[in-house]
């Protein structure tokens, strides 16, 4: 049993419940004990850093201080969200590197009766823990339903491999960790050149045109060039942008992509034989049902597809992808 301090982050309780559920399922299977930081607060995402430096870092550091206090021997904070992970790592890094700055942040924390010793805790993402502490062999040993035949685009995003304060990833631009993990699950992993390109971040709310272009690049490359069945994300923000905004991106560019975006833990759960519903399948905007049925996995259909109903039904699909013919028949047969 490996013990970790767990920082879930806000999305896990709202938009990324599927991630939370699948993380819990997978960690149980792999005997990873996650001890949630009691009374943790939001990491501020990129928004607080944009407004005020000291309060932004103090907000992040409160979590580190609580984690240090509650650590009980464990020295590793695990975050499943890339933005939370980077914020926690960033605060620890700068408090350590810039002593005067660290002192200031601790002075702020002291106003709330807290203190963090920079460098005391290692901040890591769940992907890194699964790969480097648990290991691919242990993962393989748990696989009862290999994902054979599922073409997966591994999308790791920006904030894990960059700036990578702890030198934890194999490359800042082309890390292959996620590929290795998905391959261990038996998936057919494409060599996705945009695996660390940007999902648009908060630009969906600020400059949608900028965001939609970034989303389009990712989705169209995975779909058209690499004929991926699904894309896999390791961050709630990436998943949200590519999944929930895919319909709007389609509207913006007059395209018709239907690329399911899943969390890596959802596919791990399926490979480990867990129930699709318990892994949060069916909460995605772009249904993963067809893609998963192709490898004989039944997943629930997402709730009424509100955005799609805006569009006239019966529009022809774009020129068929590799599996398109299979897909259509399959999905019809698979329909309840």
């Amino acid at each position, binding site marked *: 049993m490996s013990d970790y301090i767990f920082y879930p982050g806000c999305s896990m309780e709202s938009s990324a419940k599927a991630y939370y559920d699948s993380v819990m399922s997978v960690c149980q299977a792999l005997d990873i004990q996650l001890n949630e930081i009691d009374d943790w607060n939001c990491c501020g995402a990129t928004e607080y850093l944009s407004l005020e*430096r000291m309060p932004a870092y103090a907000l992040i550091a409160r979590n580190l201080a609580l984690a240090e206090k509650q650590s009980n021997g464990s020295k590793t904070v695990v975050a499943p969200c890339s933005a939370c992970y980077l914020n926690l790592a960033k605060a620890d890094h700068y408090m350590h590197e810039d002593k005067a700055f660290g002192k200031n942040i601790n002075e702020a924390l002291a*106003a*709330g009766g807290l203190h963090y010793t920079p460098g005391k805790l290692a901040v890591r993402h769940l992907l890194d823990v699964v790969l480097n502490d648990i290991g691919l062999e242990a993962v393989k040993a748990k696989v009862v339903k290999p994902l054979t035949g599922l073409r997966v685009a591994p999308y790791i995003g920006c904030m894990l491999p960059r700036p990578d304060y702890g030198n934890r990833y194999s490359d800042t631009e082309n890390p292959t960790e996620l590929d290795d993990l998905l391959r261990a699950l038996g998936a057919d992993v494409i060599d996705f050149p945009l695996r660390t*390109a940007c999902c648009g971040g908060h630009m969906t709310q600020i400059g949608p045109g900028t965001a939609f272009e970034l989303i389009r690049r990712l989705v169209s490359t995975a779909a058209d060039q690499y004929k991926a069945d699904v894309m896999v994300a390791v961050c709630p923000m990436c998943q949200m942008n590519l999944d929930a905004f895919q319909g709007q991106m389609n509207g913006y560019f007059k395209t018709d992509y239907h690329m399911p975006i899943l969390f890596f833990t959802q596919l791990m759960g399926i490979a480990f034989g867990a129930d699709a519903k318990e892994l949060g399948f069916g909460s995605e905007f772009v249904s993963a049902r067809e893609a998963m049925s192709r490898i004989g996995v039944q997943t629930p259909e997402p709730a*009424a597809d*509100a*955005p799609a109903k805006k569009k006239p039904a019966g529009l022809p699909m774009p020129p068929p992808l590799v599996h398109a013919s299979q897909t259509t028949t399959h999905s019809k047969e698979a329909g309840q």
Partner: protein
Amino acid sequence: MPQMIDERAKAGLTPEEDLSLLHEVSMKTAGDSHVEMCIQCGTCGGSCPAGMDMDHTPRAIFAMLRAGMREAVLKSNTPWMCVSCYYCTVRCPQEIHITDVMYTLKNMAVQSGMVQDSTASDFSRTFINFVENYGRSFEIGLAGLHNLIHPRLALRLPNMAPMAIGMLTKKGMSPLPPKRIKGMKGLKKILKRAKELEAA
């Protein structure tokens, strides 16, 4: 650097080196940002996924900082278009913490009231208002409020309403604000002290 002198001339500045703005940015960035070490190679701008939507690429911004062009820098949309992908940061041959410098420029623009298009800074403010009052972010409330403040955005996104409904029906998100953290009082004290230290 002829180009730099050009930019200074355009801004009506004298040719003497005035590095106080560059120094200020450096001081307001956590850690050693190396911002004064820019060699104007342009790797940052070429690596930037949002570069085409920026008034000035990061490279130009560094030249303008060196030239003391405070207003032009702080009024530009450049830092607000930054998506925090850190490509420029890892590729910079001088190891300038470019993404962090962009955060600093956003801080300075907000504090000096020079922000031109407030869509981005209002979004940050709305986000942080929830955090400063609940200790947690509130995605649904954030998107809703932000679109009320900036209705232009909602108009540009005709599918916004069905999408919001999808957030509730598909993702099972709650339309209610998050539960306030227990240590809210302590957190408020921490943030208050941090704000004082920032202003010091």
